């Protein structure tokens, strides 16, 4: 049963990652759709982290006690001014864990 679960999950995940890479799939992306898809990275990444940062106990938390929010603002500033991914990740995590 575990193996069946693992293999069928793997199949689902692979299909979702591969489907549109298959040239035989009869789909032509028109110009508008391609331009919309160019925004996939910022849109999806933002949608993934938003609930982690802003929500605690199903409520929006805007307080300075929300170390996720403080850490996020710090990470934004670091990323903007340094453009260094590794530095941004390590320094903002250091701040975050010192606040926790």
């Amino acid at each position, binding site marked *: 049963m575990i193996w069946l679960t693992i293999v069928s999950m793997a199949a689902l995940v692979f299909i*979702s990652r591969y489907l549109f890479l298959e040239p035989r799939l009869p789909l032509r992306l028109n110009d508008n759709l391609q331009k919309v898809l160019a925004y996939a990275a910022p849109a999806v990444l933002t949608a993934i982290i938003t609930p982690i940062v802003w929500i605690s106990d199903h409520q929006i938390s805007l307080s300075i006690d929300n170390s996720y929010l403080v850490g996020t603002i710090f990470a934004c500033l670091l990323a903007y001014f340094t453009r260094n991914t590794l530095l941004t990740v390590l320094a903002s995590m250091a701040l975050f864990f010192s606040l926790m």
Partner: protein
Amino acid sequence: MTALTTPTSTISNTNKSEFWQGCLAILPLSIAVIPWGILAGSLAIDAGLSPLESQAMSAIVFAGAAQLVALGMIKTGAGLLSILMTTLLITSRHFLYSMALRTSVSELSRAWRVLLGFLLTDELFAIMSHGKTQCHHLSRWYALGGGVSFYLCWNLSSLVGIVAGQTVDNIEQLGLDFAIVATFIALIVPMIKRKSVLVCIGISLASALLCELFKLSVGLLISALLGMIAGHVFTKISGEYQ
């Protein structure tokens, strides 16, 4: 080096160098995923999987969020169908990634397509989007370097979790999820080169908040789509060059 061998060796050197550039570009994300890999390994043992099954899950499924959620469901005795429905929901964002990469990847050979498709995580998509804006074309070797090194890191950290085998109490309170936030922020911010990207992020953020407050399980997909459409609509209205 003779003149005859120079062209081929130059090509292979370029490939090698692009491969390493990919490894380097994804390195911060590989580091940030280590605690998650450890967690996936130890949670698998905790859910009753054998060490082999636990490692196989990380090696074959290779999808952090889907694995962690599925392991929680296995532990509580959920049925296969509900596990798969949940997996589909979590993994659906990858449809967007593969569609966004269709133009550049679908023309590669089948081996390349399957390989890059298998390795297509959030992290790989992020560095591929980033790399594309920097050098205006997508290097498959760069993508492969990022994908393979991230895969190794995920599986090695899972192995550590399997060997350690202990369950961590109060996982939610450890703040591991901030590692995801920090890496994604570091990726998103440099993408903001035009106002329309900012609009896209703003709409995606607002929608994700609303969906979370209303506990919509498809919130991620809805919010991502709204953000993408908003970004494009903004360029049309404002006449922003794209």
